[in-house]
């Protein structure tokens, strides 16, 4: 099956450089200190942050910074075919360590010595770009928890299909295209790349094309996330009563 029609449209009718419908919300769960959901088309991810709280576990005592721990799970019903993945599954572990690395790079952990921050991410519906969506949800939850971070971090996935770079791959495109893909997360204000995971065979220039598209994608996602966070802050400010300057 052709992923791009002769008119240059994708299977779901998008143009190559078009994001899917993006929806996100913060403060969605009652128990967590920070929580968020992030939807990208049919992909839906929810994240919760507990902490910073007094160090948990043996190894984290006496640290000079906060210990960031991550857990990642995919609901059994989230894919079109029912599949229960164990916590030790390689795909789970891969995303988990990516989340952890990326958050470590973003959170100003040295400001919270001797604490633990738990970030839990749960995929509710999986339709491609799970890693990026998870990272976005996790970041929103971290921001919602009021944890100091370097900058707004946004992630997206891009790929190359029939020599055309496309933005925000869905499940079908991820599976069908054997072409290269790139998952990238960046600090949108500082323009610094935090996660760069490319795979597939491509010339060096291909990497550059993909990276440039991904940069644009991250900026767009970041913009949406910023507005959600700002809205939430406004709401909180209103709930507090009139602001006196």
């Amino acid at each position, binding site marked *: 099956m052709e992923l791009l029609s002769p008119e240059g449209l994708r299977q779901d009718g998008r143009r190559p450089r078009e994001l899917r419908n993006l929806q996100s919300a913060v403060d969605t769960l009652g128990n967590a200190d920070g929580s968020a959901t992030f939807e990208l088309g049919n992909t839906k991810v929810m994240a919760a942050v507990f902490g910073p709280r007094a160090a948990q576990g043996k190894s984290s005592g006496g*640290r000079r910074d906060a210990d960031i721990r991550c857990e990642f799970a995919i609901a059994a019903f989230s894919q079109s075919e029912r599949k229960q993945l164990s916590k030790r599954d*390689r795909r789970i*572990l*891969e995303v988990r*360590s990516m989340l952890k*690395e*990326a958050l*470590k*790079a*973003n959170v100003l952990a040295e400001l919270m010595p001797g604490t633990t921050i738990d970030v839990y991410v749960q995929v509710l519906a999986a339709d491609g770009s799970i890693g990026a969506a998870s990272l976005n949800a996790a970041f929103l939850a971290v921001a919602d928890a009021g944890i100091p971070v*370097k900058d707004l971090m946004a992630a997206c996935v891009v790929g190359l299909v029939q020599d055309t770079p496309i933005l925000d791959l869905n499940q079908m495109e991820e599976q069908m295209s*054997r072409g*290269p893909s*790139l998952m990238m997360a*960046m*600090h949108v204000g*500082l*323009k*610094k*790349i*935090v*996660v*760069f*995971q*490319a*795979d*597939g*065979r*491509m*010339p*060096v220039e*291909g*990497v*550059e094309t993909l*990276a*440039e598209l991904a*940069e644009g994608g991250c900026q767009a996602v970041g913009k949406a996330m910023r507005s959600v966070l700002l809205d939430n802050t406004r709401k909180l400010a209103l709930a507090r009563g009139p602001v006196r300057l």
Partner: protein
Amino acid sequence: MLPEIESATSRNDRVFIVKALAEEQRIDGRKPFDARLRKIQIAEDNSGVTVQLGDTKVMAVITADLEEPRADGGRQREGSIRFKVDVGPTVSFAADTTRLSEDEQLITRLLQKAIRNTGVVDLEALCVSAGRKVWALAVYVTVLDHAGALVDACFLATMAALMAHRRPDATVDASTSDITVHSPDVREPVPLSLHHTPLAVTFALFKEGDDLVMDPLLKEEAAAGGQVTVVVNTAGQVCAVQQLGGLGLSLEQVMRVVRIAAGQVEDAAAQIRAALDTHSTAQLAARVRRQQGHAAHAAKAKAAAFLDVALPPLSTLASVAFEADAAGPSAAAQHQEDTEMRMAPPPGVPAEQPTVVNASPAGSTQLQDVSDSAARATPDASFDAIAARIAGTQLTSAGEGKAVKQKSRARNRKSDAW
């Protein structure tokens, strides 16, 4: 960056590394874009490869089994390849089991992405009988010593092992459709058909990502702000890029790293090829000799091979040979040794791994660390013994100019094995 490694490296060490780098100096005397000495040893029966990258040592063994193909769509005519990376807890001083298992998983994933998913191995060529039997390759990568740039060494070992691998020939009888696997004695084993050669190049990044070093030592990894591993093939195509450690990089910085990496793999690939060439020549020579000699002669050679360990003259000669090689050390090499002595504390890691490695899962491979250059330099030694040794294993070492390190290693080895 990683607390476990941090604790194994002092703060002073880290500061020093960063400062020295500002003057383009590294603690082992290399320039920022120099790779360490690579050594590639190929087992006699082609089943495995041991690779050394500086002190990082990795072994890769490939097994091939006939299996039924995967049932899901379109895979009926394809063999399979899977990877198992094993980073034992004994490997590094900073051993922390969770961290190591994360390493294992990261490397496995990268091997899958860059070797399996980019179609290095022609899987369709592994099909014996569509829908019934295909070859299933399993690549076992065992890390013997971790002294930095583990991913690079793993890729080097895996690719060398894939290139050296020979699987027994199998044919399907047209009338009965029985599958016959031919013994290597009857039919020449078949090499894998490989489409391209991806190799990994790891960089450690310092200072906002502007300073970088290739092929970092473990200490440099600990001192660095982040790492980028680029997997590139010899045609300059990027197969995977992985950023680690979370140092924020600009797009230009990432692209710079990728470009530098693309220029570096040819060298490593050439070394694999050289190793393979020497290996196959030696193998051929050994076979010719085996066929020329009578049965009695072969038995004698075999006996000599068994006595191998107890042959003092050769070991002395070997080290003499190394010293002869090192007789005219270049100024750079001299400098290298000086720096090493001044800056590097005595190695805290346990002495080198024993050189006779008997670790193939099949339990059959014996790798013996015998330099063929050493063998060449010993015209007086018993012909039989040398023949047996050449037949036994091969070692090629490229980059002869840097013989200083080799010399000291040879001395170590003398006490270990001979």
